[in-house]
């Protein structure tokens, strides 16, 4: 095996290796989206963020428009502060609502933005005033049970009166 043949094959190998890495980066990973794009940061306060994670998606109308940049606990108001990097391509009015939603039944949680009607657009560092917390399954079940219990109580009371 002479030198130039070895060089050729090593060249092919190294190119293929980097090609594989490029494939992983662009086709498998999400390097292409949002890593170089211009973003502006807004924050929102939630009473409960459920299972929201850093780097989770921020969606509007189901389209990913940004990523969760950070989550902090405010020990004065006992609320969670969620920082979001939103792509500068997408501008939202100042009275946009932020909700914590779940994709599918067992899916990950994301921040859903619902545009309001204000003419002034959000700037970097603004806070979204209108928020809706994550739905906690236990709270939902207990609410349902309490309402059921009070319903059946209301049903029984007239029956008792009739019995008298």
């Amino acid at each position: 095996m002479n030198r130039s043949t070895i060089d050729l094959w090593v060249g092919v190998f190294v190119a293929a290796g980097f090609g594989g890495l490029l494939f992983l980066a662009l086709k498998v990973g999400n390097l292409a989206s949002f890593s170089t794009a211009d973003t502006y940061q807004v924050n929102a306060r939630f009473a409960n963020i459920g299972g929201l994670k850093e780097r989770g998606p921020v969606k509007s109308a189901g389209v990913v428009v940004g990523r969760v940049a950070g989550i902090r606990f405010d020990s004065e108001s006992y609320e969670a502060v969620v920082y979001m990097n939103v792509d500068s391509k997408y501008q939202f009015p100042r009275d946009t609502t932020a909700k914590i939603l779940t994709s599918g039944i067992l899916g990950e949680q994301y921040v859903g933005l619902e545009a309001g009607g204000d003419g002034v657009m959000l700037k970097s560092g603004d806070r979204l005033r209108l928020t809706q917390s994550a739905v906690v399954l236990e709270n939902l079940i207990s609410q349902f049970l309490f309402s059921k219990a009070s319903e059946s109580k209301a049903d029984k009371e007239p029956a008792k009166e009739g019995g008298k």
Partner: protein
Amino acid sequence: MAADKLAQALRARLEALGGTVTSYVVRLGFASRFLGYLVMHSGTALRRFRLTVAEVYFAGVLSLVIILVSGLFVGMVLALQGYETLQRFGASESLGVLVALSLVRELGPVVAGLLFASRAGSAITAEIGLMKATEQLSAMEMMAVDPIARVVAPRFWGGVISMPLLAALFSAMGIFGGYLVGVQLIGVDAGAFWSQMQAAVDWNKDILNGVLKSVVFGIAVTWIAVFEGYDAPPTAEGVSRATTRTVVTSSLAILALDFILTALMFTGGNGS
């Protein structure tokens, strides 16, 4: 008298045990000194880069076939098995996530590392060991050529360069295999397969950590391989034992290092 004999036998056992442990520690110390010397004297391997390129050919290019074929089959099996479980929960669209994450984070670096250890590591050990047994290394020393700089260092760097590239190719090939079985054969939606994968796989957290793992494995495997070869007793039996030890030790090293690296990389923070 009997107690005396027992104590003596016990003492001999303990001494043997201590000797074994000490000899392992001494070997570890020698191996570390060897690595230090090797890195310090890598000038030749980097200046005359052709030497290293030739070793990339032997360690990397000649391992391509086994790496690519194994990657393809591992990916295809992952897709088949993953689909079986995921469709029970109605989550068969997440097949891409399962295949990509398991390959990029774990199986790519680890299986490629194990294959690399048995394919290239054993060859390196056998070559250096035989060079030593046939006194080629001593002959070089006689000619004032440092065999570590001339023979060992190019093989070391060739292996360290090849391993991450092989692991990346293994992962890419595995994901392609998963795509073939998941999308073409079973019929999972191609859009969901790729988009869910892209949403879940992170460049820094998953792919770069996988590459880092493969770099660490590459260093560990080639270090063990060149050391075992250099340290092999210069007999046929000695070389054969050293080759076996290379495969066993580097496989165990890969698995142990993988546990440590995974514990460092993927816990503590928030999961995916």
